[in-house]
């Protein structure tokens, strides 16, 4: 079960146009992600390096799925494939009814902008943009049908939701790691994607900040957003709906859920 978190519609948020539209709340089934025999290999012959090998997995709508495993087990590779920032060597990957494993780069970019939010361990904010501009950029790239003012308003709302109302005009270099990661979460969810892939988002943070970030992400499932949470932290993973354990590029076990 997801932990209890602050509802993104509450407390300081606009009530007229909430950041997370209830229209996005959909039943938990059928599966949002359907991965079949996914394999990702770099190099050839003896130098071949296997990221994931023949992984098949369904991710349900609105669930919080934790992916755990030791370093090199392939959990980040699996997250990258699901997020559409890497392409499988073989296998098929259907996300929200769209097969993405054979998409051309530009179409895949459009798809990412509209269908997935990504949270990185190293934040990857644009260093020359302020917090609010970073969030606004995601709206612009996703071609959200809104004017510049509306986009700005939504970006500020997202930052307020992650508790950064006072930091909207700060540059990444002027913020702590925890603050930057919260900007990263605001950037990932501001376009209201059906899925967020978070690749070790707490890895570079202390325990308190890590926990806060996890709670923010987990809270998104309450409005129907699917969250794929890749982590080393077994304690946090235990709070997920399901836990996928990986080793040597393969799924070792799937725990929790029906």
């Amino acid at each position, binding site marked *: 079960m997801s932990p209890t978190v602050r509802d993104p519609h509450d407390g300081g948020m606009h009530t007229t146009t909430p950041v997370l539209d209830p229209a996005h709340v959909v039943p938990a089934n059928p599966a949002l992600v359907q991965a079949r025999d996914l394999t990702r290999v770099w190099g050839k012959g003896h130098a071949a390096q296997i990221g994931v090998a023949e992984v098949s997995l369904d991710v349900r709508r609105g669930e919080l799925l934790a992916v755990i495993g030791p370093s090199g087990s392939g959990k*980040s*590779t699996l997250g990258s494939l699901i997020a559409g*920032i890497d392409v499988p060597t073989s296998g098929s990957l259907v996300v929200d009814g769209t097969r993405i494993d054979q998409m051309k*780069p530009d179409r895949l970019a459009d798809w990412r*902008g509209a269908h997935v939010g990504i949270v*990185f361990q190293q934040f*990857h904010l644009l260093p020359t943009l302020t917090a609010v501009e970073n969030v606004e950029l995601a709206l612009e790239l*996703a071609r959200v049908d809104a004017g510049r003012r509306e986009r700005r308003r939504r970006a500020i709302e997202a930052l307020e939701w992650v508790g950064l109302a006072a930091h909207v005009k700060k540059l990444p*270099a002027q913020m702590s790691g925890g603050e930057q990661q919260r900007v990263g979460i605001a950037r990932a969810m501001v376009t209201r994607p059906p899925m967020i892939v978070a690749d070790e988002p707490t890895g570079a943070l202390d325990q308190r900040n890590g926990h806060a970030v996890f709670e923010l992400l987990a809270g998104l499932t309450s409005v129907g957003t699917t969250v794929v949470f890749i982590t080393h932290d077994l304690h946090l993973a235990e709070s997920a709906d399901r836990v996928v354990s990986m080793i040597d590029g393969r799924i070792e076990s799937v725990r929790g859920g029906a």
Partner: protein
Amino acid sequence: MRSMLRQFRRAPGRILASVFALALAIGAIGVLAVPTVSESTLHDAVGQDGLADIIVDTTPLDADQLAAVGDVSGVAVAEGQAIAAVELADGFLTRLIGLDLDHQTMDLVQLEAGRLPASEDEVVTTAALGAIGSHVVADGVSYEIVGHGSTLWWSGDDVLFAPFDTVAPMTGGANHLVVTAIDDGSASLHTLSDDIRAELGETGATYTTFPQLLPDGSTPIDDDIEQVSTLIGMLGIFAGMVALVLLAGTTNTLITERTREVAVMRALGGRSRQLRRRLRRIALGITAVALLVGLPLGVFISNYVARMVLTEFVGVTPSFAIDWVVVAASAIGALLAARLVAARAARRVTKLSLPEALRDRDGAPFGGRWTHRLLAKLPTGGLIGRIAVRSNARRPARTLAVTTQIAAAVAAAFLIPTLVSSVNDFNTATLAPWTWESVAIARDPGLPIEASDDHDRLGTSEAGIWVDGAIDDEEIWVYGLRTDSTFFSSDVREGRWYADTGREAMISNGFAERRDVAVGDTIPLELANGTVEYEIVGTVDDSNVAVYVDRADLAADLGAPGMANVVWSSSESPWLDVDAAVRVDTAADLAAEDEAGRDAVVLIFGAIGAIVVGVSALAVLSTMTVNLFERRHELAALQAIGARRRRLRGLLARELLPVGAVGLVAGLGLGALGARAIIGSFESADAIDIGVTDAVVAIPFIVAGTAAALLLLAAAVVRTTSKRSIAVTLRGAA
């Protein structure tokens, strides 16, 4: 060495790009060696050929008169040659040069093939006049070609070399005097020439042309070579400056991109001094490897350009030469510059606060400076536009470097056509006052004026005199014209046209201004047979270095009253009633000659310009490659959140185009200033009005070329970026 190899294995592409960029930069400095390589080739030729110190045409001299010249104090050796103007079977006018092949010590014929003439019906000439074994007919007499070759003095001309006894009967004796002086300093040669003229005068002979003095082992085309060399040298300095910027930029980047690595080492206890030394070694190692490629490249460039210069302007094919001074200076300069830049960059890198350096992966945090914070508040366009503006401000040194590199390329691209159009306009301007369609030139003042004036049955004609002279040792063309000349009509800037009484003269305005000659002055005019005086009564706008006097006065001054040596005509094929060997040049011929000369200049400067533009383009490419490497995470993150390649291209284009615009404006300004500096130096050196014609027509092409190159660069950068998996790039950052 092991450390270098490790660096290479770590990023072979970037290290190779840096080495190549530095090598090209060092190679470009090789342009500076062109003048020395050219001069050394010429001086080698002088040594082989035995070029004289004083060369002059005379009235026919017998053995006693030659002996008298040999006895003049200061003369080491005096030799006589016989030169006759002859007409070949196809109507080509050339010279048959009679040499004492068994005894001569000067003007030795350098054979390319065959042998020297052994009898009076054999000649040596150029391949253009016939194959060895074939015959050439001159003035109705057939000569067998037994060899191909020439002397330095006649290089580039298709003339015939024969034994002295073949030609002497035609000329009445030796009529071309060559002298080697004991002291070949400039002042001594002037005195010696005057002494020889005086000695000849006592024997009833005289100079018929202005004596050519070649002090200190110089050659007759030294002036031309020096002018071309000056231009090449200036462009070389330009190329060198661009090369230094490239060298500094590349070295700086090599150090800066190791910011985080150095921070980790500092965190682990590495001492700053030790780390700085390590960074300097990396930069110096890469520069040393670049020198191995760059120095031979520079030697090749200098020899290639020197070959073009000498082949086009002198007709001499130079041998391979190396300017060791430039080689050593390039090597020392490159190592010193790399050392200085590396030291500065290393100091900066090791002084960054550790937390900041460890946190920032790119070595260029944004937000630490007030300018960053100010820019973050300014709405400079949309979000992509803001990233573009702030990214340029984030790395000001790099932005400045790219701007400078673009400016250098643009300056070279504008300077070259400006020089060409200026030379072109100058050539046109020098011919503008002359309205003849053809000019018939006799070797000596051998055309009776009375028989030449108005005797062209196909048009009008006018006899005149055109000889070399000097005013205060500055060479000047001396024209003897009718006071009512219909073929020369230049505007009088100051004063009036000369009259046919009172020894009056007009002078070129550029020469008058730069040599402080004013209307009313009396000038000493040195002619072939002595110095005479004229009063300047007017200055003319003729873009020339010339003095204009009454032809009758000049004919008398030259010791040939009533005689002329040119006939200007209104028809292209003049039909003159004169019995003398003349060469006819049409205005079209001269225009074509000017065009050929201009083409040669375009070829040479175009090659150097291409080097400068190439070095600059490579510098921009190298800087952008490093820029791309540093920003790969940023670009990958943009792609991860949904940016198409078009967006990335747009971002880079918005970054590059403003920089390109500034570089373009600065480059055009620099190019215009450079052209003015170069032409100004020639104007003051030659006392001549050349004028600058900016190649405005080239500007749209330069603008379009710059924009296209930058857009292509942006496209190429994005293409390279998108080839790599976003996930892999982002993971590399972690």
